[in-house]
């Protein structure tokens, strides 16, 4: 199984979730994070003082899927999260050794 970690723009969440559901994803974890990346460095003014905004609000998705599904998921996310503008986000894939569903005790792919 693979853990897919994706950062996306917050307003894309709903669209990506729908696409993933259609692609067969049955669960995920969503976290509000602050992203730091190339999209940054713009300055704001507060009470007359300029300051750099380094962090941008992002959504982090964490999805565990059977290894075989990983590529398809990557593609789905890429397609729906893309706006073409800087800050669209990144996707990382990690290996997952074990999975377990608390309610039933099912393990691994059955638990997803």
């Amino acid at each position: 199984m693979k853990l897919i970690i994706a950062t996306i723009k917050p307003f894309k969440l709903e669209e990506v979730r729908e696409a993933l559901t259609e692609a067969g994803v049955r669960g995920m974890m969503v976290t509000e994070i602050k992203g730091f990346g190339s999209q940054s460095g713009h300055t704001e003014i507060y009470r007359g003082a300029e300051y750099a905004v380094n962090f941008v609000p992002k959504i982090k998705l964490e999805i565990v899927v059977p290894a075989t599904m990983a590529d398809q998921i990557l593609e789905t996310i890429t397609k729906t999260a893309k706006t073409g503008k800087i800050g669209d986000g990144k996707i990382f894939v990690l290996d997952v050794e074990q999975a377990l569903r608390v309610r039933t005790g099912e393990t691994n792919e059955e638990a997803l």
Partner: protein
Amino acid sequence: MNLMKSLIPAAAIVALPQMGLAQEATPGEAAQHTQYIFTTLLFLMAGFLVFFMAAGFAMLEGGLVRSKNVAMQMIKNIALFSIAAIMYWLVGFNTMYPGDFNGFFALGGPTVLDAVGVAPEDAALDYASIGSDFFFQLVFVAATASIVSGAVAERIKLWPFLIFVIVLTGILYPISGSWKWGGGWLDAMGFSDFAGSTVVHSVGGWAALAGCLILGPRIGKYKDGKVHPMPGSNLALATLGTFILWLGWFGFNGGSQLAMGSVGDVSDVSRIFANTNMAAASGAIAALIMTQVLYKKPDLTMVLNGALAGLVSITAEPLAPTLFGALWIGAVGGIIVVFAVPMLDKFKIDDVVGAIPVHLFAGIWGTIAVIFYGEANLITQLTGIVAYGVFTFVGAAILWTILKATVGIRVSEEDEINGLDMAELGMEAYPEFSKG
């Protein structure tokens, strides 16, 4: 008066006064008892409006500090009001209004109210009840202390701050207040300050300035020659606070007419309401336009400060100006704020909520502006401004220094970073919300 007397039959002249009708004798005035009731009512109404400014200050300050210091700001505000209430009773009121005195200082004792169900002959029929007057004056001194609270936020220790408030509300403010409103030397000189641009607001501003200088800026505010803004945690609360203060100001300025029992007086109170509102509006709009022009985007916190600066500016003379006068006087106040906030930053004076620009600078401006519409003389006005400034700034600086040298006034670096709420109170204002 003259005309009347000649027309009234002798018998009536004799009879009527004893019927309590003499009160109606002056055209344009209600009966004297009625006048007393009206003026007392003015004080009560204006008093509860100004009281509510305590909530306004608390919300404004609570909205402009970071969430890790909000509970501290709340406890400071409710405690300072309470201390002011007690100190002003214990010594402040009678020090500020000592009756006949040397014009500089006379220590007063605790306030004694009118007896229950006071008889008319024992009441100050040409003025108002002591209770209403005391209440009205008391809520003013609390405003002064609130001004300091906002400026020194996010780094001061609770108890030393409260000790400062004890002295400010019990001693410093009443003494300097007596110079003008207690009929002291500045009053004798003709210094003019209708509702307290100087007596209340500048005094708070001077004490805040001394505090900011001696306390130093918040960690990280000025680093590598740059200003690092620390955005307020809740601008909705700050806006609410501003509206509450604006509301309270109708009492602040309107009540300072000190009379409502005649056609002229109540009309003057109305003029004051209209002018006060206009100055706030123009202060807000001036700040809105200025920040848009200077920074390309309007700055809400400046607009809030601008409205308040407009209010402070008109406070020294809310009656005499026309509505247009109130408009431009308030607008200048709003503009002052927009320039003064970054200027203070240049001097590394870290005033968290803009109290010094709003209350001190606009207060000075308002006191000077009296010369345009009121009957005041520039030299006298400047004398007053300087006298209040020197006395309060020096007095406050000494006090802050003593506190610093003894109990210390600043929390530890770690406590400041973790927030005063956890460090000083062990309690968070928003325990459930994540912080950034």
